[in-house]
């Protein structure tokens, strides 16, 4: 099978510029992108630098951008990317991190964030005589996060991290869930408060699903972040706008059966957060004016008409919430 790689090269010992280099090689059917890159390095161009080791998606070394998306090269077949033989495959280093050489990045960006979430179990109380007694369900629940191999693919492609370097980013947050979800850890609330209130914490995730999409190990980091938010709310961590936003949203749907976007904002920011609200006023007026929206419907509560089946929606709410209460007892 003809394979045509277009590899982004960077040699820190030359003039510091990047360039793309083409490698046209022959590979067996079923080859992975890593097989192809190793072939290049071994037989075509020994100066090509990349990290790789296990070849089976366990060690996490070979994350890189293949066809503009972070993937493990060892888990990506050439035919996953191209449908026609010889079609070009673009290979680049991961994003959101400095490049050291060719496809090798400096992952300290990631590891510093891992350290930020206090990445080790902190039991409180006297140690047990033998093992901690915990349910298998609890262990399986955090197993999804433990499955993370710290390859950095989600860090590479996280759009929030792109614009805000303080964001703890998906992998480290998934790691955080591995501890808040572990019944053996005695510092759950402390962790959740930190994760809620710190700059770049759990409420800064935009829920864009990019990390879920690129994760090669089905860790679904964003889902872990959502679990962290749920835990934070349940633990009574209430200081954050994000918590109020969720409450306001849900209440709106309970009241009307649908969302009232115009009330969402003041309720999320906090009705008494006057300076912030004033800052938003021009934007709100701009929209109301240009869209010719009826201002009074938004100014007066309950002016929006509920949907016909609102009583059923409210019943569903009350049922779900009473069950949840029951469950948490």
């Amino acid at each position, binding site marked *: 099978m003809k394979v045509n790689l277009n590899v982004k090269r960077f040699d820190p010992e030359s003039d510091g510029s990047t360039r793309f280099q083409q490698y046209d090689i022959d590979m067996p059917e079923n080859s992975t992108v890593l097989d192809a890159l190793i072939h290049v390095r071994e037989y075509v161009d*020994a100066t090509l630098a990349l990290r790789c080791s*296990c070849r089976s998606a366990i060690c996490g070394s070979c994350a890189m951008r293949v066809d503009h998306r972070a993937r493990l090269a060892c888990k990506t077949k050439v035919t996953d990317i191209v449908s026609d033989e010889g079609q070009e495959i673009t290979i680049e280093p991961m994003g959101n991190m400095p490049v050291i050489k060719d496809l090798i990045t400096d992952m300290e960006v990631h590891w510093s964030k891992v350290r930020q979430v206090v990445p*080790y179990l902190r039991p409180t109380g006297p140690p047990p005589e*033998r*093992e901690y007694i915990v349910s298998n369900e609890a262990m399986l629940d955090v197993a999804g996060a433990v499955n993370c191999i710290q390859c950095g693919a989600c860090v590479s492609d996280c759009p929030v991290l792109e614009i805000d370097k303080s964001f703890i980013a998906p992998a480290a947050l998934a790691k955080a869930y591995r501890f808040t979800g572990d019944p053996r850890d005695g510092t759950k609330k402390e962790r959740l408060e930190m994760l809620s209130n710190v700059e770049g914490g759990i409420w800064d995730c935009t829920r864009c699903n990019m990390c879920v999409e690129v994760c090669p190990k089905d860790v679904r980091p964003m889902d872990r972040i959502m679990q962290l938010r749920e835990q934070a709310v349940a633990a009574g961590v209430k200081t954050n706008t994000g918590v109020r936003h969720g409450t306001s949203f849900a209440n709106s749907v309970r009241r009307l059966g649908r969302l009232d976007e115009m009330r969402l904002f003041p309720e999320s920011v906090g009705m008494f957060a006057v300076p912030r609200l004033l800052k938003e006023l021009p934007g709100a007026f701009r929209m109301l004016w240009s869209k010719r929206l009826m201002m009074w419907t938004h100014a007066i509560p309950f002016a929006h008409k509920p949907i016909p089946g609102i009583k059923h929606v409210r019943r569903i709410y009350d049922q779900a919430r009473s069950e949840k209460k029951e469950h948490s007892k």
Partner: protein
Amino acid sequence: MATFQHDVLIIGAGLAGMRAALAAQGEGADIGVISKVHPVRSHSNAAQGGINAALEATDSWEEHAFDTIKGSDYLADQDSVEVLCKEAGAELIALENMGVIFNRDDQGKLGTRRFGGAKKARTYFVGDITGQAILHVMYEQMTKAQESGESQMKVYEEWFVTSLISDGERCLGATVLDMRTGEIHTVLAKGTILATGGFGRVYEPSTNALICTGDGMSMAWRIGAPLMDMEMVQHHPTTLKGSGVLITEGARGEGAYLLNSDGDRFMKTYAPNAMELASRDVVSRAEQTEINEGRGIDGCVLLDMRHLDEKLIHERLWQIRELGIDLAGVDVIKEPIPIQPGCHYAMGGIKTNILGETPVPGLYAAGEVACVSVHGGNRLGANSLLDTVIFGRRAGVAAAEAGREIDMPIAPDSTIEGEQQKLQALLDRPANDEKIARIRWDLGISMDKNVAVFRSAEGLDEQQEEIKKLKARYETVPIEDKGKVFNTDLIFGLELGYLLDCAEAIVLGAITRTESRGAQYRVDFPERNDAEWLKHILLTYSPEGIRLDYQPVTITQWEPKERTY
């Protein structure tokens, strides 16, 4: 170019290395840890199935020890096995307390699965990612230890060790290449612990990661530490065709069948009681026999999990299901997966005692790089993770304790210069058509042909000749990359040198041992011969040639018996 000093230097940051570091820190030592990859990239990750310990009231350390010794085909030193099995329970609990999310039973206590060669279910596990789960927890503990500041612990990531420093008697530390800058440094230490893992890449295919190149064995050998039982190379019964990627024994532990081309569970012929859960050497030979006698399918037999509960596969074997889909295009829930025996593990290695000390003062070894010997002729599944943590801890403690009595060594001024010249000479070699990768490939393929599951005098002699030729080719192979930053070409060149040393020792061991025991099966000597060969083979390097020594196996309470499953 700089010189660093530590009480204890640990080379390799897999499970054995990190466990050693934590133990040495517990003793108050100042520690340096060097690894050619980030610690969580280490090959301990690849251990899928579990870790053994006799914890249940219905089990005992003696039974675990007996299974281990029988599995070793009575080549294991029984005093070492006793340590391994007696300390297993406490170590397992320590791992759980550190945060490993071991599988639980209905009462929330640790739950087990069955594994090959064991009479009792004593394998504790995290799905089929046990090694990864433990490795990452160990790294968490390293992070915690570094933050605690109890004693200095410095981790040098992506540093490649080029040589051990010796004054002709003691090991004084190591010379290293900082892969990121290309600079050479020396790290001096009162005690140096090798935890560099195995040499699996000597073979092609192999379950081992590309980094498993026998670095520690070769470097220790070069300063006079003896290698022991190097011929004992485990071939795992279930590896994927082509790539050699591992499919856990846990699959059979959970009830998977092995089928030949007739759809028969052929293990009934070879191990009527244990069936698929006989020890690995037995199962691998059975598979190879089926394949050789024409009952294979394209060089493979089949591993069948279709009868297992789908939920069980999702909860306990999720990773191999993914590997099957990604690398073989087979969903094990729906189809049997073709597998074959493949190179997996080195039972042999640097000779150590139960403290991790090698015969070279100041040099310690633990984990796969070492031969203590708890695995003898054949390692039981789920005993390797146990080996790393038990003997990693012991080596860490021993090196830290010994360090209290010793002054910091001084290396001769010429050390760095000599190493630089050696590497520069490699870089300056004239260009030719030879490729490092081609020599490595030829080595792997020929080892797989001549020194795998079945061995013969002819094949081994042929391989010995082949290695001579490969070594000659290696003397002139050029390093094409001349750069300093991440010159991986240079690294591969150095690794190939390590691999060739290991291969030479493996073949010499296999030629010497004229019997069949454990992983060493000689078609020309098909019987185990306790009268002559109940002993270890030690190979010691010197510039004049390799010296052969023997050492009797330590027997405590289990007299060798016939081995059936």
